């Protein structure tokens, strides 16, 4: 039995066995197949320039998905993310363009606004034991409205000359890798480390996997849920900075469509909607898969409407592979 040996097995075997038993196995298979397919169908799919495009195009979705992963892991749901993206973008524009404050203040302000909305979501949900969907639907409506009113539905143009902090966030590179991509990778490494290698992460899995048992264990379930909301808000705030820095404006339409994509990615990666199962790199892989699909279909000049259909089919396929795999693993353990 392979799981017995994993403690002392060579690192390669350990990685392989964790990949094979992971809920994202189907995603990995689909990703590899898709890469092979596109590289046959289009000559420029495999090229440094295309990889760069691909990586930048998924960085915002990746960032939003990181927060969504955490919130689903603790067994909650937050649908207010697009309002956070809108608010943070407007606040960034307001602080920098209207008040003339430096980019560092604007960026921190945008993240703080995200965290602040997370605090509100968390407090209401946890304190009054309200269904998180209801709480965050309300804050979604409220803060989308606030962002629209305060900005007058206009884009607040940002000025980011080459070499300034905001320019780096939007267009800069380090060692040839876009800063946006590095930010996302850093967040995922951090998320992975926290989830897998800290007490906080362990308790997140306990709280999400079985809140009743976590409570019996003396864990403060509410605290973990609250913190997940705050972190999710802050991550969305950071994502908003990336969007705004690239678009060079602050505006309330910044977040459109991201929540659906993020939830698709997280669920595709095998994170359970019921909480307690899933992880960081699974989500990253799923984001990569969705991004590759979009990128390849774009190269092949497939109409965007069909791309939606394709990602839906992909989701169902990945779920099918997952079901099959569960059945096989179940059989293996029952013996």
């Amino acid at each position: 039995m392979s799981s017995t040996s994993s403690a002392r097995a060579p690192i390669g075997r350990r990685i392989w066995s964790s990949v094979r038993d992971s809920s994202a196995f189907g995603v990995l298979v689909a990703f590899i197949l898709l890469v092979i397919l596109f590289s046959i169908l289009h000559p420029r799919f495999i090229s440094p320039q295309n990889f760069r495009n691909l990586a930048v195009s998924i960085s915002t979705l990746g960032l939003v998905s990181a927060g969504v992963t955490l919130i689903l892991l603790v067994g909650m749901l937050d649908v207010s993310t697009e309002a956070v993206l809108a608010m943070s973008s407007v606040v960034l524009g307001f602080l920098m363009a209207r008040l003339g404050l430096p980019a560092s203040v604007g960026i921190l302000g945008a993240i703080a606004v995200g965290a602040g909305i997370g605090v509100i979501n968390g407090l209401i949900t946890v304190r009054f034991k309200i269904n998180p969907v209801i709480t965050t639907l309300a804050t979604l409506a409220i803060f989308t409205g606030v962002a629209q009113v305060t900005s007058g539905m206009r884009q607040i143009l940002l000025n980011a000359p080459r070499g300034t902090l905001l320019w780096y966030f939007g267009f800069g590179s380090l060692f040839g890798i876009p800063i946006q991509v590095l930010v996302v990778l850093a967040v995922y490494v951090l998320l992975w480390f926290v989830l897998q290698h800290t007490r906080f992460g362990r308790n997140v899995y306990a709280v999400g996997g079985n809140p009743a048992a976590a409570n019996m264990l003396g864990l403060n379930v509410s605290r973990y849920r609250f913190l997940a909301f705050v972190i999710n808000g802050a991550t969305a705030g950071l994502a908003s900075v990336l969007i705004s820095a690239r678009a060079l404006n602050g505006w309330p339409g910044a977040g459109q469509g991201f929540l659906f994509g993020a939830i698709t990615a997280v669920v595709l990666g095998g994170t359970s909607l019921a909480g307690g199962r899933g992880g960081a790199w699974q989500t990253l892989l799923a984001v990569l898969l969705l991004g590759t699909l979009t990128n390849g279909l774009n190269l092949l000049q497939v109409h965007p409407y069909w791309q939606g259909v394709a990602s839906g089919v992909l989701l169902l396929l990945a779920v099918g592979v997952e079901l099959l795999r569960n059945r096989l693993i179940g059989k293996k353990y029952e013996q």
Partner: protein
Amino acid sequence: MTQPSLLEGTQPTPASQPRLSMRGICKAFPGVQALSGVDFELLPGEIHAIIGQNGAGKSTLVKIASGAYAPDEGQILLDGRKVHFRSPADAREAGIMTVYQDWNLFPDLSVAENILAGRLPLNPRSRTVDWSRCYQEAARELQNLKVDIDPHMRTGLLRPAQLQMIEITRCVCAQASVMILDEPTAALGPQEIESLFDMIRRVAAGGVSILYISHKLEEVLEIAGRVTVLRDGRKIGTADCCDTNRIELIRMMVGREVEAPQKQTAVELGPEVLRAVNLGRGEFLDNINFSLHEGEILGIFGLLGAGQRQLVDALYGIKPADRGDIFVNGAAVRIHSTEKAKRFGFGLVPDDRKREGLVLALSVGANLTLANTPAISRGGLILSRRKERRRSGQWIQSLDIKPKQSDRLVKFLSGGNQQKVVLGKWLDNESKILILDHPTQGVDVGAKSEIYALLEELTHRKIAIILVSTELPEVLAMSDRILVMRDGTIAAELARHEATNQKLLAHATGGA
């Protein structure tokens, strides 16, 4: 089945022929002979109670009657005809209906919709629901049974007794010929019980045979015409309620005294670690006083719903007490969260280990170390897999958890091994006061005795144990001292040498 409805008046079958007759029923589960050769007869319009200790076979017998289990041997006759139920739906179809404890009602629908659920009257022409007829019919049914509830009311707003009445009305309305009531008074106050009993008598007078299961002997004597006693899967006898009394019933339930207790050594008791003074919460828990010493096993016995769960909730901060005091090691403490309880040295093994004891999606190692994650971390923050493996490996060894793999998901373990994991995490946390709520529930015989041996060993390590159980032999065998609970308070405190089966049951069922 053509059973006469209550509305049309009754034409009882000849008194000589039983409504339901079960003959030579045998049923075995892996490791247990739950029923051996039980005969049971239920006459038309009769209220017949079945009593017995936990594990006597009551619920198995009832589940066979209601089609949930098939008997290994024996036959069932309904109105003289042999029947085979393959499912509860079969039995319902034949007129045998169970009124469940966890009301099977739709809280957001009206009373009328619940009563007529699945059989809403349709307007013959439009094939849509005929609402006015629906409410009329429901109102008529309720009136027939003299139940004063508005059929328009939203069901979720009703009190437990009323929910029970709706359930019963629904069964009557669905033309039940046999109705099974399983502990129907468990959640009710004295007055509610009276009005429920009135209703049950009316239903029976209408010709429906009622099979009544209860732990509460006084109630049984009040409501039932006859009572059948089961013990260890056998029928001990059937008595007319007017010719018997509580003491005699207890004697039938208990039989001879069990052999000498298993716990071998009396541990030298250490200082007092826990004292409860006048502890209470709402109407559920009142006037609880006891103390607990290092190395002691304090048994808490009571029938189902006597307040044990509420006591556990209060001690462990799940539903904190609203009056009285708790002293831990002599100092007064307020325990208003499980976090606090754990900090004061408590550990809880809950009675439902899958729902409350384990995180099934995590590994054995993670579950074993979950109560004390600082011990497997560096700098109190970063987890060390190596420490986790080593620490959990020690518990896997010393508790003999099988298979011996810390990275296996805990959901793939057997019940007994899972329970060892639940217990193990509190040992890992070095908790000093363990509350064990039915620790051997759903555990096979072998693992059971291992757990008993473990408890005894723990007392040598100065751990104080509160053992909550509804299983008499377990409480008698393991406890140094026994508290008997009834109606949310402590009815008696017995030392180990003075406790007997009969005394415990007598205190638990009321009056000494």
